[in-house]
């Protein structure tokens, strides 16, 4: 049995919610690369991780979304790949204890292959480098998340797989009339098939749209491949209220979609932008009340 299958043997797992917005409430200034707080303010990063474990997350991520060489180089931080990723995994490991698995977060480069801003060979080597640090410091699995270009994801996956851990690959479906395409136009079917063929251990959808949009995407991913499905939905689209930007989706509304997502085949379920530990608590409560949907 694969490691992922063993973890899922007792049913779907609840993951965590947003990190960036949580760090901002703890004082992370705008424009500062959040990953640098793994070294500057590890206590704040750990408090975010801990809050999710306490809320009932069975899988937590790491604060390493931007910690690949290509993205860090944009901020003059390319020399920090090793320490940022090492600290990121260590922090989440400490917070997780024996209560949660640690899936290490790896975001896209933020550059486009199509415009020749990016050397394909460097993408693979950058993700191989990040993955090897994450694996060496105790990550249980790797998560390539919020990707929008299939080609970049394939290159990143080829690098990440070299670390020997299970790799989940998750896309943002935020384009097209029904918000069921990636920015580059790929459908859930294409994404699922291509990534399964490229050796992903699970595929999924995160960010992009509010949770109400995720069940159809989840179902289509599931139908197109034989892999477990990873879902992390936003707390809806933000609205402007009295001058500030707020997410209007409540934790209860969010958790209300849990049964539909399970029915659509989700194996991992959590929140993306705008969600917090309350959303995870609501998911946990919904799970323990099987009749909540009736």
């Amino acid at each position, binding site marked *: 049995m694969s490691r992922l299958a063993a973890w899922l043997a007792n049913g779907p797992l609840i993951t965590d919610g947003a990190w960036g917005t949580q760090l901002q409430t703890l004082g992370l200034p705008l*424009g500062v690369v959040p990953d640098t707080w793994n070294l500057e303010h590890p206590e704040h990063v750990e408090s975010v991780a801990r809050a999710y474990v306490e809320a009932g997350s069975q899988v937590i991520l790491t604060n390493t979304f931007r910690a690949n060489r290509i993205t860090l180089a944009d901020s003059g931080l390319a020399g920090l790949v090793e320490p940022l990723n090492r600290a990121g995994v260590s922090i989440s490991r400490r917070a997780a204890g024996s209560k949660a698995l640690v899936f290490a977060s790896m975001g896209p480069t933020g550059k486009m292959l*199509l415009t020749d801003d990016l050397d394909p060979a460097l993408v693979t080597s950058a993700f191989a480098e990040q993955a090897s640090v994450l694996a060496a410091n105790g990550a249980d699995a790797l998560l390539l998340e919020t990707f929008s270009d299939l080609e970049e994801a394939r290159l990143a996956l080829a690098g990440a797989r070299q670390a020997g851990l299970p790799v989940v690959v998750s896309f943002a479906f935020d384009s097209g009339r029904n918000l069921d*395409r990636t920015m*580059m*136009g790929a459908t859930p079917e294409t994404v699922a098939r291509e990534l399964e063929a490229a050796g992903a251990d699970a595929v999924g959808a995160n960010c992009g749209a509010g949770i109400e949009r995720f069940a159809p995407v989840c179902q289509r991913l599931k139908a197109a491949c034989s892999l477990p499905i990873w879902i992390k939905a936003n707390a809806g689209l933000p609205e402007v209220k009295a001058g500030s*930007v707020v997410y209007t989706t409540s934790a209860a509304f969010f958790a209300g979609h849990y049964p539909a997502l399970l029915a659509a085949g989700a194996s991992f379920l959590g929140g993306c932008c*705008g969600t917090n530990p309350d959303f995870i608590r609501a998911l946990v409560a919904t799970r323990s009340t099987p009749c909540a949907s009736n």
Partner: protein
Amino acid sequence: MADLQKLYDAVLNGDQKAAIAVTEQALAEGITPLDLITNYMVPAMDEVGRRFECEDYFVPELLLSARAMKGSLTLIRPLLTASGIEPAGRVAIGTVKGDLHDIGKNLVASMLEGGGFEVIDLGADVPPEKFIDAIQNKGVRVVALSALLTVTMPSMRKTIDALKEAGVRDQVKVMVGGAPVTQQFAEEIGADGYSDNANAAVALARKLVAEGAPA
């Protein structure tokens, strides 16, 4: 004789090499730049836009077509300038302060260039002063602000406020866009226009330039 239908096809199919080749041949044969633009290139980009709206085309196709346009326009621009025809307008574009994302901004910049605009790309995490400088010193007609993060949306408002304080707000039109940005937000912060995609951003910029033209 240059087969001008091939110019239309090259732009529609995003074939920059073919676009440049046909343009070179056509110009050598004395076909006027305006004929090329008006009768072949602009209709091709209109069709690209239509296909994008219908979801036959997505970002990769948009980008390739914009690059084919740009390749052709690079040859045509000097001739237009020589005959006194100005570019569609000069746009300063940037991702607002605090936001490090630039893919969306780059897409819009490429589309604007394909649409005949001269684009000054100020990059990501751009402080308001840089936009003000572009307005004061670089003859910018439109300022395009991008944000990907919810938390940096207030930076858009601050940028527009800073333009007002510097006394340059009335000299330009301001357009905004990015994943979390909405029409409602654009109106709230006093922007002149909002577009929810890179294709529509070109039409919006044209409209804003027309509105801003001195009577």
